[in-house]
């Protein structure tokens, strides 16, 4: 699959951008030219050789803050995806095999979760459980999980009705064997597409929450926090918001590009399933394949 994605131009570009972001998350604080928390008397300075992206309202180096802020964004997005994958995909597959009661309960739960606006809910949860990205992202992951549930369930249903799976059932194969041998391979491509897309959503959510000052404590640097601070000083630095905006846009764009590349690389089956994926904001129902 990876080889097929790398064979596509879009896949190479997307992976290149995302790899850069991941490397920034790991090594950003180390390669930052200056201490991202160190204040100076050089307030709201224009970009220069010393401060490539200028300084903020406390004289802190903006480039260093953006680099240091990468880690929180990546970790937040990963938490959303991991949570959604575990809570969504696994029950999605099992709902086909564990009987009608399990199917009914999980479908109703999914319907309930889809009805909740995740950004608002995340804000409420941080108010309840304390101001932190991990708890906010936990909730967002939970609320995004219906996407994975439905994609996994749709793919599993399609496979479950195929003659070779029915033959395996007649031959007395266990559910675990069938899932491992026949279902996972078919379910993974559409899940990978959903995963890439959800990662982009995770980045947007982290940026949105930190833009609102939720989930982090000052002076911790974040992409959204840098953007929010810049907007208060447009008369001094009208260009300043461009840096965090480009960073957020490029990352989300790369996630979506990767989702497209994965879909193209996964062939007709994946495309047929993924094109029916639900939209996050609308919470609309998806027809099962």
């Amino acid at each position: 699959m990876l080889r097929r994605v790398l064979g596509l131009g879009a896949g190479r570009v997307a992976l290149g951008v995302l790899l850069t972001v991941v490397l920034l998350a790991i090594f950003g604080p180390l390669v930052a030219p200056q201490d991202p928390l160190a204040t100076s008397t050089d307030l709201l300075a224009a970009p220069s050789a010393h401060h490539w992206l200028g300084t903020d309202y406390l004289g802190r180096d903006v480039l260093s803050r953006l680099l240091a802020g990468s880690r929180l964004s990546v970790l937040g997005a990963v938490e959303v995806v991991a949570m959604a994958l575990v809570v969504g995909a696994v029950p999605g597959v099992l709902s086909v095999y564990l009987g009608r009661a399990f199917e009914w309960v999980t479908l109703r739960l999914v319907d309930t979760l889809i009805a909740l606006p995740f950004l608002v809910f995340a804000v409420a949860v941080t108010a309840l459980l304390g101001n932190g990205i991990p708890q906010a992202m936990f909730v967002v992951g939970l609320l995004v999980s219906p996407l994975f549930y439905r994609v996994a369930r749709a793919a599993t249903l399609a496979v479950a009705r195929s003659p070779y799976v029915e033959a395996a059932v007649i031959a007395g194969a266990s559910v675990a064997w069938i899932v491992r041998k026949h279902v996972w391979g078919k379910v993974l491509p559409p899940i990978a597409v959903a995963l890439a897309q959800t990662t982009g959503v995770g980045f947007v959510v982290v940026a949105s929450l930190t833009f609102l000052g939720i989930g982090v404590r000052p002076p911790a640097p974040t992409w959204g926090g840098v953007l929010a601070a810049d907007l208060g000083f447009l008369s001094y630095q009208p260009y300043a918001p461009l840096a965090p905006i480009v960073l957020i846009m490029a990352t989300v764009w790369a996630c979506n590009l990767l989702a497209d590349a994965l879909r193209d690389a996964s062939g007709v089956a994946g495309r047929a399933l993924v094109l029916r994926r639900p939209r996050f904001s609308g919470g609309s129902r998806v027809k099962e394949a």
Partner: protein
Amino acid sequence: MRKQLLSLLAAVTLGLAGCAGGTGSATPGESTLRWAVALPAHWDPVVSGSGAQFRILSLAYASLTDIDENGKAVPSLAEKWEYNATGDQVTFHLRPNLKFSDGEALNAAAVKAYLERAKTQKNSALFGDLTSIKEVTAAGDTDIVLKLSQVDYQIPLLLGERVAQITSPKAASDPAKLDQSPVGAGPFVVTENVPGSHVYLKKNPDYWDAANIHIDRVELSAAPDNATLVSSLQTGVYDLAYLDPSQVKAAQAAGLDVVFQPGFNAANISLNVNKKPFDNPKVVDAFRYATNRKEFVDKVTFGYGKATDQAFPPGYVAYDPQSANAYPYDVAKAKQLLAEAGYAAGQIKLDLVIPAPSSAAEIVQSQLAAIGVTVTIKVDPNWATPFFAKDLTLSLYGTTGRESPVQTLTAHFGPNGPLNLSTPYEPAGFEDAVSLARRTPLDSPDYARNLQAATRAGLASEALIFTYSQPNIFVKSKKVSALPAVPGQIHWTGVTVGG
């Protein structure tokens, strides 16, 4: 279908036009001031207290006294007043034939009812300001006699806009209703109040100085974000707004008038000496030496403020020159004091609890990090509750100042002062010094000296580190004439709004 859509559009348009009518609309030819401002949560001055919101409430309420451009008490509802020979009784004489906007008479009985309500109402935010007043008597229709619990020549300054915005006794019989539907005798009358959205007021023809009010209508709107405020004024959406120092340059570039109004305010770092580590005076001293006030002036006020190490801005009558710069910025000395107190670098970890994100908090955090103190900033929207309950260890506060300097001193340094996070702690000698200042007539040659001595005694407090003072900054469109330069207040006398 198209016909139905057109009908719907017409209905919506008519509906909107209907909404714009009634009390919500301005009449053509009216002089209207549109002010973008943080709308008051409370319209009952007794509940609202003596904080910055009194400026908005003063649109609807008149006060017993006022101040002039030099900060001296001048007549308002009371046309004159006099003390007895011993200074423990003061009689205010009201103007004749005053009335509230609900038609009730504003007489001595109404003033007495207001002061007694401010002293006794359960949710009064003013009772602490009125401790000098022992008994209020209405002598006839226009004379109010205040018997004082101590000699106190500050009373005329005290009973100004912050503390004595007189409310209609009839309306105050339902304090909850009054809190949202103000009934006073101010220059304007509230005609519509939609909390969180807007408040509309019209000129009060019964205001005692109505002849000098030239604005027919005031529209208060919830202030937009800093980033869009200037463009809102530039495009004529608003005529007047408070301005953050970061937006001064943009406002001036947009051709708007930026008004720097003098004030009495001072920001501080509040410490609780009843809690560790501030129970150790060496730690307090270390924090004092670690405070770089210039950084606050440069980064919070963008250079428009002044550094101050007292509860007043430099130059104010109560500012004590002898105490100036007692703890100059000295990181090495601060570190040494912490070591002497037995604290290694990184050993002190504190929560700095504030009501809203602020650059001042980040500056405190960074300055204390320089001496090895780890500060975690915690934003608590319900900050006021633990702050005024004196439960916090470290916080920030910015007072708007008071017309009475003694009131400012007792609020900060008194054992029960609302701004003294270390209640019941009081610096030694403060009580006597402030009592002397209170007993000194305002026109006495000793007044400034005694006041400054009280400031000096208060500054021995280990509970407060003052940082900077910032003028009240307004931005207004050119069509609004100059605002009277009354320190810390906004007066509408003589102000005009052009077409």
